[in-house]
């Protein structure tokens, strides 16, 4: 065979290979049989061995794992005429995970190929084939401006607030269910975009408004048959409004673990809305289910709590704020409408050690232990008959909690548009030996817990935090200026002495 012929053969082979590759990738990007193997190792535990969303973990999760046999996918970029997602949409859900749920991002442990194979497999579980015909039309993006936000707000109040609440915190006035097995679902709290399931870029939000969320009451605002239809421009206005209402204070900041109690010279704030709270720094803490002791709780609805504190010569006051979609008032007809059967009061508590630890040893973070008692300040939201109440409990473990007869703290809460604000006040020092005595300048452990009564939280079923810190920062005295000046003086003196001794030689 001569060289020329060999070249031609290679050329031909390359062309054949190219054609083969292109046609395979058009048919499907992944191989469903290979996908099944990955699925059974990584996914079946939650999504079930046959993909029906009924794996071992399913009952312990909210939201529940997706049922792939239904073919309904909440997040897609195909337009309203195409009920099923692009393969790339499913790819992204697997690769990036669903923020704010237990679905993690898989791109760190699965290869690109593994993920495409999974896409092919989960599609096959509902017999889905091919790709949608058309994408959402994004039109011309309207950049954010005061005017656009204002227009967006008007549209939001008209179209969205019915479910998402006046301030977008998802404090619904309606009971909502999904299409799978009628799971109770709640509208997204739009002030925490970092928890949006499928991205919080303006384009992602635009997509959600355009496609709606399949299988849920979130409608498509592209539906020409709907009176609520929005034009492309209007949708961008709503996007700009939604991105403008994020509440950075609720966002957890890495390593920020200290409640920074501020010293005030005069009176402490009178209530939760007092102007004096405005310029006090707040710290946000993550809340998770109480999964340590019986009865455990796996599906909390509240994600985080924000804490401020101020003090003066006599007293210390805490302001606790958290987003809760419901004001749970047992006995109230309206609250009953939103609840599933029996429900309970909302509540919040602060936990403190009775003795400020000298070393690192603290009480057990779950209600203390035999040799390290804790104080728990427990506020409850009240019922239709009973007013709000506050108790102090002395605890030395989950099973050893005593409620006091006499309470030396005051507490008052106020619920407004999806947010609870509760203020608790106590004297810095008390004459009760079972009380923690606050001290300026000492790092003191502190922990928090919340109960959402409408979410079935009562007794041991609630959210908790681990131990964090509170510091009553003393006023910066003259010491802080005086000591560095003294050091500078000594150093300068030493320098002059050295210079002189060197010169003499």
């Amino acid at each position, binding site marked *: 065979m001569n060289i020329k012929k060999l070249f031609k053969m290679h050329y031909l082979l390359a062309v054949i290979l190219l054609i083969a590759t292109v046609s395979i990738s058009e048919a499907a990007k992944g191989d469903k049989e290979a996908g099944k193997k990955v699925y059974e190792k990584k996914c079946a535990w939650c999504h079930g061995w046959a993909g029906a969303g009924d794996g071992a973990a399913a009952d312990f999760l909210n939201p529940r794992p997706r049922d792939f046999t239904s073919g309904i996918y909440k997040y897609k970029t195909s337009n309203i005429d195409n009920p099923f997602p692009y393969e790339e949409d499913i790819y992204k859900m697997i690769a990036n995970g669903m923020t704010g749920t237990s679905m993690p991002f898989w791109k760190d442990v699965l290869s690109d190929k593994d993920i495409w194979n999974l896409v092919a497999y989960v599609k096959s579980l509902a017999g889905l084939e091919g790709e949608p015909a058309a994408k959402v039309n994004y039109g011309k993006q309207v950049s954010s401006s005061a005017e656009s936000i204002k227009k967006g707000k008007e549209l939001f109040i008209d179209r969205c607030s019915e479910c998402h609440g006046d301030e977008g915190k998802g404090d619904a006035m309606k009971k909502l269910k999904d299409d799978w097995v009628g799971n109770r679902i709640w509208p997204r709290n739009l002030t925490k975009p970092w928890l949006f399931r499928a991205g919080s870029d303006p384009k992602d939000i635009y997509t959600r408004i355009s496609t709606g969320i399949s299988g849920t009451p979130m409608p498509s605002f592209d539906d020409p048959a709907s009176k609520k239809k929005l034009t492309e421009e209007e949708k961008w206005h709503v996007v700009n409004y939604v991105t403008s209402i994020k509440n950075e204070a609720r966002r957890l900041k890495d390593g920020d673990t200290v409640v920074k109690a501020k010293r005030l010279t005069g009176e402490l704030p009178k209530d939760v809305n007092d102007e004096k709270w405005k310029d006090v720094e707040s710290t946000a803490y993550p809340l998770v289910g109480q999964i340590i002791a019986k009865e455990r709780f796996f599906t909390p609805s509240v994600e985080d709590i924000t804490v401020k504190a101020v003090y003066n010569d006599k007293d210390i006051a805490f302001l606790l704020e958290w987003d809760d979609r419901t004001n749970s008032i047992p006995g109230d007809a309206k609250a009953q409408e939103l609840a599933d059967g029996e429900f309970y009061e909302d509540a919040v508590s602060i936990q403190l050690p009775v003795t400020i630890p000298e070393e690192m040893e603290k009480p057990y*973070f779950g209600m203390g232990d035999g040799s390290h008692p804790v104080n728990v300040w427990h506020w409850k939201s009240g019922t239709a008959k009973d007013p709000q109440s506050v108790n102090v409990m002395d605890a030395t473990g989950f099973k050893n909690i005593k409620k006091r007869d006499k309470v030396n703290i005051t507490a008052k809460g106020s619920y407004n548009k999806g947010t609870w604000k509760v203020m608790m006040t106590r004297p810095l020092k008390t004459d009760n030996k079972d009380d923690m005595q606050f001290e300026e300048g000492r790092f003191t452990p502190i922990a928090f817990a919340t109960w959402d009564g409408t979410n079935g939280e009562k007794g041991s079923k609630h959210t908790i935090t681990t131990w964090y810190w509170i510091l009553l920062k003393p006023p910066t005295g003259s010491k802080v200026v005086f000591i560095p000046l003294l050091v500078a003086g000594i150093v300068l003196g030493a320098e002059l002495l050295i210079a002189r001794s060197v010169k003499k030689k």
Partner: protein
Amino acid sequence: MKMSKLSLFVLLTIGAYLVLKIVVPIIGRFLHPGTWPLIPTSLLKMYMLFIIVTILLYLTSKEEDAKALIAPIKATLTDPSKRMLRNIIFAVIPLLAAYITYSNVAPSYDAPVELRSIHPAPPSSVNAYNKSYNLLTLKNPLRDDAANYAKYVKEGGEVYFKNCFYCHGDKLDGKGHFYQGFNPQPLPFMGTDTIAQLSESFVFWRVATGGPGLPKEGAPWLSAMPIWEHFISEEEIWKVSMFIYDYSGNKPRTF
């Protein structure tokens, strides 16, 4: 041109500092992707003190070297042509000292550093399920039944995804949906530096008695690991142990 001893001293010191401050975290990131493990400041100060003393010892080991090291300092102090430089140095050093002192005395909100032992030494025997176990001889009884290995692993997986994954993660990477809420954060099982270093009896002890079963140096008051003997059976612990080793591709330490 030969480098002056003083410049060498300064360069070596800065080099050592950069290694501790940047190279060590890079190595750490390589070993544990996604992390940036810094050396605690107090430890860094101590290391730097030893390093400076060592460099000084090295540079002044000979009489003439010591002189060469001090010469430029001496020159700055005495040479009339260097008056300007001298005055600047004399002003800067006290200001620097004042600044360092200020940052130390000014009250801050930085949380105190707490050092806990991640793998405290296990006791020789533990009590759980109303029994006493000798951890030196304790073995996973299910491993002898090789014929049913796959069955036990799968059942262990079910136990894991009903009890453990909230914290230890769907990916066994220690990043379950509740992981952020706890300190210490949950142990990851993937990789070769956690459970691969432990014998199965150690795993049994840590699971059965949970955080409160830790010795004092393990800071039992902080760990959120529940006391699992209250929730699952002995057999379930052995099964879940088989699952986490199998899933992560590790083997229990047997020596």
